[in-house]
């Protein structure tokens, strides 16, 4: 695996069904979020909205290596992960609208998608706050001898927090099956990697804990898949943590409040040349795993799903004020 994770590698062609499914997932994230951004400007969605656009190959590439019984934790930039994990676009959108038909009764919004059924543990908005949770989930699995792993996504900015250090050390010390996935999009809000880390080769941080680390080009879906498959297999086999750095880029602002003063438009444009979606669809077209018509059909299907999600969200209702305090504590005491 390329250490710096910047080279695209030629990989064996995928099975056509799988290929289309993966492309569909990336497209779904892209269009879903484009629509969400639009709805934000129409004030249907409020609060912070963090778009994943540009980074789709990471969630799609990593998540295909997971199993339904595995635990998944994400950040506030988690629409993509939620969609790939199989959470319903309708219900996600309802949540982002703040409606009670959403996954969290509308209380969480964009930053806090949770779905216990699919073992999707957020949607966490304290940077690096969920890493220790991941360690604990994996510890529970180990103790209960459940053969499953915990996959935890976070940004390169999160790695400066003490929470990262403690979680990595505990995971390694306790030998628990956590796949730590760093989505290195080069910026933490407006703070470039070089202002966040003295050591910018992030894989070197693994060695400090004796954790195997690898980096991969996060704009290359198949490279991510391969790296993630290796990583997940290693975690399953060894029961130990693994640290995967996916080098990627967000095409959009950090959130809807961001004037993007900290980076050049040219830099963004350059990265857009490496957009994972056209890159992957072109590969598939070349490899004849996909026809133009398939692509259009996929687009149409995605657009329809997104529109449905909007329609659903629009039709949903507000949680009554009287219920606001429910679930501050559990209703059923044992």
């Amino acid at each position, binding site marked *: 695996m390329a250490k710096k994770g910047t080279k695209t590698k030629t990989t064996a062609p995928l099975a056509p069904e799988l290929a289309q499914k993966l492309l569909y997932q990336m497209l779904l994230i892209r269009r879903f979020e484009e629509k969400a951004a639009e709805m934000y400007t129409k004030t249907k969605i409020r609060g912070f909205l963090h778009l994943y656009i540009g980074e789709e190959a990471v969630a799609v590439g990593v998540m295909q290596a997971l199993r339904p019984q595995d635990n998944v934790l994400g950040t506030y930039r988690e629409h993509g992960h939620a969609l790939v994990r199989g959470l319903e676009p309708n219900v996600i959108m309802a949540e982002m609208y703040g409606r009670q038909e959403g996954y*969290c009764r509308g209380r969480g919004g964009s930053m806090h998608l949770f779905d216990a059924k699919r073992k999707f543990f957020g949607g966490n908005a304290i940077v690096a706050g969920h890493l220790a949770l991941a360690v*604990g989930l994996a510890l529970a699995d180990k103790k209960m001898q459940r053969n499953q792993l915990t996959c935890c996504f976070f940004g390169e900015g999160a790695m400066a927090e003490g929470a990262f250090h403690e979680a990595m050390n505990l995971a390694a010390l306790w030998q628990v099956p956590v796949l730590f996935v760093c989505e290195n999009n080069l910026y933490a809000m407006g703070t470039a990697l070089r202002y966040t880390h003295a050591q910018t080769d992030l894989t070197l941080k693994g060695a400090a804990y004796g954790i195997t680390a690898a980096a991969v080009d996060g704009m290359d879906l198949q490279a991510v898949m391969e790296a993630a498959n290796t990583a997940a297999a290693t975690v399953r086999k060894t029961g130990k943590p693994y640290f995967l750095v996916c080098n990627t880029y967000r095409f959009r602002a950090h959130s809807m409040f961001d004037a993007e003063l900290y980076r050049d438009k040219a830099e963004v444009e350059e990265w857009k040349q490496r957009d994972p979606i056209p890159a992957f669809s072109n590969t598939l077209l070349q490899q004849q795993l996909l026809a133009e018509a398939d692509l259009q059909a996929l687009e149409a299907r995605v657009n329809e799903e997104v529109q449905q999600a909007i329609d659903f969200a629009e039709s949903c209702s507000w949680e009554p004020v009287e219920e606001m305090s429910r679930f501050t504590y559990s209703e059923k005491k*044992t």
Partner: protein
Amino acid sequence: MATSLITYRECLKQAIREALQGDERVFLMGEDVGHYGGAFAVSKGLLQEFGPERIMDTPLSEAGFTGAGIGAALGGMRPIVEIMTINFSLLALDQIANNAATLLHMSGGQLNVPLVIRMSAGIGRQLAAQHSHSWEPLFAHLPGLRVLSVGTHEDARYMLAPALLDPDPVIIFEYTSMLNLEQELQPVEGGVDISKAKIRREGKDISIITYGTGVYKALEAAAELAAAGIEAEVVDLRVLRPLDDETILASVTKTSRAIIVEDASRSVSVSSEVSARITENCFYDLDAPVQRLCGAEVPIPYPKHLEDAAVPQPAQIVSAIKKLLQHA
């Protein structure tokens, strides 16, 4: 009914042992709970008895292992996280407030966190400014937590079991200065009720409302007052959040006077909350303004005489009450 003389420390240990024996999902984790035997010898011997899977020594990583405890609770375990002392709890407070206390509500009721966090609290061993905190008020402010204070041997022995049955995060404060104290202990069938305050002594003239180290101090003061013909009722809050208004207000309604005693420093404390609630609810029943005896508003100094001066002592409770009753 069988009684026996037992230390507060031994009560705590028996409670932990019983919990470990009764439920496979329970494990204890924290700094030095295992090989060292517990910073204050509370868990001494448990590693040998239950093995390293159930008694887990952690590195110095308060935020990390508290967060891991939350995760393990989400994953179906019933962790008891020990934060060695309350002084280090601020390092884990983000995890406690933003995750443990919040996940259930924020997930719309999906994810409860059945976690117990124990910590040794308070002043009294000359450990100076960074090791003598009474930060119960900080925790009592946070929605989503159940906050318990172990002011008696009974609670030391019988609070943990119901806390572990609670589907939500429970914080338990134990008191370093009480560990060696011996008392008789009455068995309590089915554990104590961790939603209720408890009247530790009945009285009609004034309610002394307190918790933690204040309970035995208040009882001592009440005994002295009784000799002077004053019958003080001692209310042990036990649950600092959510407060048991019913018991508090019933007592004050009965006695018409209240003094609140706590080691924590005065401003924005549990006492202030109790005082405000009494005023809000019993204003017209009061024969005198509610009073507070609290800790001094200073970082706690090392020397014994200053440590003693920094928190209310039984003699002060006695004299404050005598003064208050003369004034009524």
